[in-house]
């Protein structure tokens, strides 16, 4: 079980609070987290990554432990602090200027 934080629009769609617990089976990676999110909340399918190519949507970012993990491999292991629940895994809507 890890801690996950979703951006406001996705919280509305999924009907969850800002932070919630998510059971992620298997190795803890970006891909396994998003797999688990989409399995628990089918409405999120396509909102974080392209359902066909599995590529992260351009204006979505993944943060943890004060680091931007967005450009890491989706199969790279997430930090231990996420696995131990010391830190949440953030899905972020990128800032827009103007």
């Amino acid at each position, binding site marked *: 079980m890890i801690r996950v934080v979703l*951006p*406001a*629009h*996705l919280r509305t*769609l999924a009907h969850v609070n800002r932070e919630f617990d998510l059971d992620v089976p298997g190795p803890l990676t970006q891909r396994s987290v998003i797999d688990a999110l989409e399995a628990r909340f089918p*409405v999120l*399918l*396509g*909102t*974080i990554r392209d*359902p*066909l190519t599995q590529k992260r*949507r*351009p*204006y*979505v970012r993944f943060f943890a432990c004060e680091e931007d993990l967005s450009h890491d491999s989706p199969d790279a292991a997430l930090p231990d602090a996420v696995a131990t629940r010391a830190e949440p895994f953030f899905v972020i*809507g*990128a800032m827009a200027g103007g």
Partner: protein
Amino acid sequence: MSGVRVLVGTRKGMFILTSDGKRKTWVVSGPMLEGWEVYHVKGSPVDPNRIYASQTTDWFGQIIQRSDDGGATWAPVGNQFQYDGVTGTHQWYDGTPHPWEFARVWHLEPSLSDPDTVLAGVEDAALFRSSDGGENWHELSGLRTIGSGSSWQPGAGGMCLHTILVSPSDAQRIWVAISSAGVFRTDDGGVSWSPKNKGLHSEGIPDGDAEVGHCVHRIALHPSRPDTLFMQKHWDVLRSDDAGDSWVEISGNLPSDFGFVIDVHAHEPETVYVVPITSDSVHFPPEGKLRVYRSRSGGNEWEPLTKGLPQANCYVDVLRDAMAVDSLDDCGVYFGTTGGQVYASANAGDSWEPIVRDLPAVLSVEVQTLA
């Protein structure tokens, strides 16, 4: 008691405006789906409680929402729009081949006979159908894969399929309009398609009379005359009396024949409405005067309708899906602006009043006439 329900899609959510048959006082509900762009909202003609909405952002992609209670509550349905078979390429802005990529749903067209069936026009240009209330979507790929598809090139607003008309007399006949490609028609329910742009002339393409490549902004028809179509092109207003096989210009005395919307009176099939916009580079009304133009003769002779509309310092635009008519008597006409106003006329355009003035930029307006 009859009434109307005006469905308004905006840059930052959806609003529903309701009134009784007099259309004097209005109740404004919303925002719903707040913060998202709602490109289009449209109700089923056979079940007014069934409404579909296209909800999108550049951040989180496409959601389709469905209401089964007239817009009181909404629930997401299917949002998987996967092109059928080999995706192929169209031309990119620089002329290079570019893979078809789904961006968003521009237009939802519920079936005239089945509330669970709905068509979706998407960017990059393609047509999808759902037969289960929006849960699952399947491309009618005969359109995208006709010979010219690889040569289609997006306009400034993207390569969008923005208009869908289903013939009231033959459900197998469908017209679609695609930005920077033109009008296409199927007579077999979407299996095979043909371009229907004969008579269009466009100065913005190398061959002004080409079979495809025209930037059609909107087409409309009257249910009693399904072979008569009216078109607002990038420049030029046109009509066809042979189901799109040929077109003739009817711009006549319009102050500008550039614009986006066009619609037809509910009871008078030769009464047509447009909102002239200054030019392709100046997207606001000529002289800062917001005027709807009405032709009662099927085109060429147009009269300005100004009563109740701002006639000075008005610099809004009226986008392609932002005009609709109700079927009450007198016919009601409605349009929304990029300045957030929704104007209504309860007398076929003779006079106008704003229902609301300060919504986010209006992307679409549809009307349900309620028994």
